[in-house]
């Protein structure tokens, strides 16, 4: 897939400095990668179509009926920012999880904090993950639940989130922030540039 999922053929990427859009709350702590995309939907050889399976098991009951999950509620349709709790993305290293999030139309995640591998996988795809304090998350959830049309803005330079009158600071690992702001969040081009040095080191290590 071109564009946002892969560096362009010349491997350049556009910087990501701001994400704006409506937001949907997916409440709870420890939302693990099995919940984001259950393993049985990873029987595939490309990432195409994974958006459909995002949160599959909690959006449908075991008999296939919709559970009225926030993502499926009319008032949150078209949201591009996910808001969740602590330890978001814990569990497996499957990139299928952030791929499913991106392919379902999301452009950023705001949560209490993030599991490490998930965080790295997301940033590499240009999906910023910013961490907020619990009380700020609660306030944000309240605003977007009562006023789903509120435009939420994540400023990645200032590391600040705005939603209506609400404004609060967020945090993000410096190298990830730097990568997004400079359009180097997918490291492949930088890694390839050093291939001669890599070969020297490989020879030394044996």
């Amino acid at each position, binding site marked *: 897939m071109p564009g946002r999922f*892969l*560096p362009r*053929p010349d491997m350049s990427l556009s910087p990501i400095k701001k994400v704006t859009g409506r937001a949907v709350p997916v409440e*709870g*702590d*420890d939302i*693990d990668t*099995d*919940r984001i995309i*259950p*393993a*049985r939907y*990873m*029987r*595939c*050889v*490309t*990432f195409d179509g994974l958006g459909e399976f995002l949160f599959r*098991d909690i959006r*449908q009951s*075991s008999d296939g009926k919709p559970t009225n999950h926030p993502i499926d509620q009319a008032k949150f349709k078209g949201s591009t920012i996910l808001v969740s709790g*602590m*330890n978001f993305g*814990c*569990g*497996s*290293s*499957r*990139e*299928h999880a*952030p791929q499913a999030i991106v392919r379902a139309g999301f452009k950023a995640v705001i949560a209490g*904090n993030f*599991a*490490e*591998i998930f965080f*790295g*996988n997301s940033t*590499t*795809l240009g999906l910023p993950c910013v961490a907020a304090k619990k009380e700020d998350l609660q306030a944000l959830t309240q605003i977007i639940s009562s006023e789903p049309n509120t435009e939420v803005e994540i400023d990645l330079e200032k590391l600040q989130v705005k939603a209506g009158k609400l404004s609060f600071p967020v945090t993000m*690992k*410096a*190298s*990830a922030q*730097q*990568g997004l702001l*400079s359009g*180097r969040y*997918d*490291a*492949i081009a*930088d*890694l*390839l540039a*050093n*291939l001669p*040095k*890599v070969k020297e*080191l*490989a020879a030394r*290590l044996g």
Partner: protein
Amino acid sequence: MGKTLFHKVWDRHAVGKLPDGSTQLFIGTQLIHEVTSPQAFGMLRDLGLKVAFPKRTFATVDHIVPTDQRVEPFKDTLADAMIKELRKNCSEFGVTFFDIPSGKQGIVHIVGPEQGITQPGTTIACGDSHTSTHGAFGAVAFGIGTSQVRDVLATQTMAISPLKVRKIEVRGKLGPGVYAKDIILHIIRTLGVNGGTGYAYEYAGPTIDGLSIEERMTICNMSIEGGARVGYVNPDEKTFEYLKGRPYCPKGKDWDAAVVEWRKVASDPDAIYDDVKVFEASEIRPTVTWGINPGQGIFIDEAIPSPEELPEADRSSAKEALEFMKFKAGQKLAGQKIQVAFFGSCTNARVSDFVEASKFLKGRKVAPGIRAIAVPGSQGVSKICAEMGIDKIFREAGFDWREAGCSMCLGMNPDQLVGDEICASSSNRNFKGRQGSPTGRTLLMSPVMVAAAAVTGEVADARKVFAKA
């Protein structure tokens, strides 16, 4: 000032700093499997890239393989497409593939050590979070996503920021019937499922020194369940003994030279750690999880806590867990009926796991109505168990003895829970839906506790069940 193993290995493998401030880290060995690699090969093709060091990558097939009938094409056409894709990719890019007919296939984290590919002092990466298992040999091993699998294929390096190092020291003697699985479940329960975020865990102390290599693998395996991406144990004589003579290990003089180097890689006695936590082995008892994350565990003689008595941060998750599991606070798990017993996974499907449980299963029968399956971690494990007659003991007890794979740990193949079945499982994750049924309920425990649950049909204290063994 001394250095930790983590820092020694990191410094040796650092190519340099990248523009975003992270480190370009050389990866000595990459392991790949059918689930997280096909898209990486697809990206290489899209970008017109080659595999830079094909001899440094090894593949096997584990997640999707059926464990009952292995004739291709597999009934599941999606799974069949995945194994064929991996075969094609390995052949096209010159990567060694431990395919089913090789006799070397198995769960990637069991195959690496078995083949002697996993060695002290190196860096290992694999598109699987349980890659930390390889740390049991004193390697620094990272679970990575598919874009990073691509990076390592294309450059044998990846971008990563250094971790802090927490020493987890375990002292004293383990009680009878208490195993490595209980140690790690207890550590995760105590430090939290995200307590290790940003850290590499160095497991040390007399109790860890006293464990076998396979037991150390069980502990390192579940580092990620505690939030730590990396877990390791300093290499020692047991490590070298385990590796000697394995197919991919150095031989003769090269072996002697390698051991000299491997000894040097261990953390220095005066190494500085970012944090140290101490555990007393004698305080650890057989542990079973009651909830939907691996930190929600209790000793077998304890009652499920009420959310109110837990730290504030754990309450909402505990409430959600009680509702999902249909358990009540104050309830004991001992006596809880089960429907399924799963003996397998990269956590506990090595020869020593089967040998230990077989001592107790011999002459006993799985309780009526219990679906009990035993899935060796690799074809190598399967072969040794057959030579020792271990498979026969499991079969005679009423276990369904299967072919090697990940199986019901994550239910990507036909081995899945049905409805809200309760499964006593030797695996590593009890997340909602993990074992293939959205409402399935997983209770994590040691393999011997799984055996005890299988023969009694309920969660039971193996120390009592097998008291006469």
